[in-house]
């Protein structure tokens, strides 16, 4: 029975990058440790690290299940616990393909009216919590979770509307390669993802699924920003 459940093994700390100065890297690490937990970085998938670096204590909004999974996958891969609240349609196979370690995943498919308490309790112990709020959320409820998030160094990914988010990641345009009039099968998804952070100009990138990779650095956002 033990192999199934597998007590998760914590990976060793990431080795230093030999290309850069050791002292600089160590300084960065010390700085990261000295910072309040609120700003510590949370691991993300390599494809998303540039686009949406996750910071502990922050809330991120997404508009699709694929993006929510992708944001949680990096931390799970790095040995953290993740949780999904209010997602009865959790696709376990897709999650595991994306790198989510299922033995370190907690699901509360239908928290019902207790969703706020459940999410707060999950935030206490997990690193990344994906929430699909069942109803519209007012600023007060969001504020409760925000303060909890900051003290606990967790990341909240909201699939849906949320009053105040650090960044909102959405899919602007997407297409699938593969099926042609009945033939073939779904192969790859190319999506243009846009990240909006407050008043800053939106940042765009071309991503492909499965496996969430950045295809080309998009310069369109620069052009758009300059008018």
């Amino acid at each position, binding site marked *: 029975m033990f192999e199934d459940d597998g007590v998760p093994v914590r990976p060793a700390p990431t080795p230093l990058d030999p290309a850069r100065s050791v002292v600089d890297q160590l300084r960065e690490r010390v700085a990261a440790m000295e910072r309040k937990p609120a700003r510590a970085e949370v691991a993300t998938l390599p494809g998303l690290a540039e686009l949406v670096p996750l910071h502990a204590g922050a809330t991120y909004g997404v508009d699709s299940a694929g993006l929510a999974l992708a944001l949680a996958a990096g931390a799970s891969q790095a040995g953290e616990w993740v949780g999904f609240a209010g997602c009865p349609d959790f696709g376990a196979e897709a999650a595991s393909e994306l790198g989510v370690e*299922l033995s370190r995943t907690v699901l509360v498919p239908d928290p019902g009216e207790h969703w706020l308490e459940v999410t707060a309790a999950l935030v206490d112990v997990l690193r990344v919590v994906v929430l699909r709020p069942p109803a519209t959320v007012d600023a007060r409820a969001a504020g409760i979770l925000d303060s909890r998030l900051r003290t606990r160094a967790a990341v909240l990914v909201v699939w849906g509307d949320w009053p105040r988010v650090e960044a909102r990641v959405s899919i602007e345009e*997407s297409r699938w390669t593969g099926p042609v009039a009945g033939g073939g*099968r779904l192969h790859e998804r190319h999506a243009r993802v846009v990240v909006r952070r407050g008043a800053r100009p939106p940042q765009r990138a071309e991503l492909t699924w499965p496996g969430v990779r950045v295809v080309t650095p998009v310069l369109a956002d620069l052009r758009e920003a300059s008018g």
Partner: protein
Amino acid sequence: MVWCPDWAVVAGLAEAEKPPRTPAAVLSANIVEVCNGPARSEGVRRGHRRRDAQARCPELELLAANPDRDARAFEPVLATVEDLRPGVAALRPGLLAVRAPGSWFGTEANAAATVCQALVEIGVWDLRIGVADDLFTAEQAARTADVQGWEVVPVGGSGAFLRTLPVHVLEGDGAQGREVVSLLQRLGLTTLGDLAALPGEAVEHRLGRYGASVWRRARGEDPALFAARTPPPELEAEVAFEPPLDSVEAITFSVRTTAERFLSQLARHQLVVTGVRIEAESDGAVCSRRTWLHPRHFGPRDLVDRVHWQLQSGVAGSGVRSRKDSGAVRAPIDRVRFVPEVVEPAAAHGEALWGGAADDLVERGVARVQGMVGFDAVRRPVLQGGRHPAARQALVPWGERAVDLRPVDRPWPGRVPGPAPVRVFAAPPLAEVVDEGGRSVAVTERGVVTSEPCRFRLGAGVLPWQPVSAWAGPWPVDESWWSGGAGLSARFQVVGADGRAWLLLRAPDGWTLEAGYD
């Protein structure tokens, strides 16, 4: 020696809750292994194939062979005899040996009668008792006895008793025995006495070591005795409430020390418990009983939580709490008992000296969530094998072990290829797919799509009407046609104009949305 004939059938019928006089047979690999008296009187014999047996006796109850079940069912019999005379040896399920407690009960016949009565009282009606100097003779004596009767072979009379028996009693030894019986019959030896009269060396030469042991047994010279079992240690723990408690909170508060004692007495035997049965008694009768499994092993807090959930689920008006257990606790509880069902050596579960602290924290946090929304509202995803996305995963209640999972590493022909869908709908919403003329798209018996899908709509507010920009399929399946499956269905991958892809199923009665590649 106490012999319960056809024990596998008796145990099987008891488990299936059928009356004990039903004709029944235990099959292993489609061959009748054991059958009971009523089946035998219909002509069913050991070694028959399943359909031969059913042809002779159509109402024959077929049971799967399960040695564990037989042994488990035999346990109360052992315990009963142990009460009368310690030092019981279970030779195999259905057959036990004990030193005849003759001098205590007066005569051996009195002892046999006492044992017989005690066993009939616990519901074992078909039993026979044999008393003799050695095991083999005692077993044969038991076989010659009547139902609930006994046969006593006097001291030193084994040889005389065995001499008259036909050689086919050796068939009880299994395949080896059957072979020797057939050989002896061909040699013209019909009774054990004929065999015993032969010179020993000659028998050993011709029949090997087994033959020699049979020869010794037939002469009543077999010295084999039995190793009596040590009664298993008492590992259950229970707590009685006086006066009975009717509030779940009070009960959970009171069972904590018992839970700790239960685990510490297991720990003294170097054991940890991974499966426990919790029984609550009300007015002397068990009113709630449930087995809980733990992915690792139970700690005192886990046990107290389980008691809480089990009793809470029965209390009326508990709302969102667990709906799993039907054993309602409406009466005050006067006793709670922990029965270990699965124990494992503690060494296999040792915790590392460092680490594990974070997981502990998670366990605690999740237990708090379970306290809020109910035990089975918190799930742990696991993968399993299957053809459609919903069948390929299972959401196991947190803190329980996954059981009955389909293996992942099989090919599962007919499954939809391509990336796994991100959203999997447990209760598939209805959908509609129509062609240019507005007719619903269907799939013929031969798996041909009747017309080109043109527009589709997903029910339950997922997606309004939308043109199809690309589609792939069908992947036809006809699952469980032998047990009332849905019939020939086909799956399609459909990409909408907004670039989102969906997995739709066309069953005979319409379209449903199974999964989304959001």
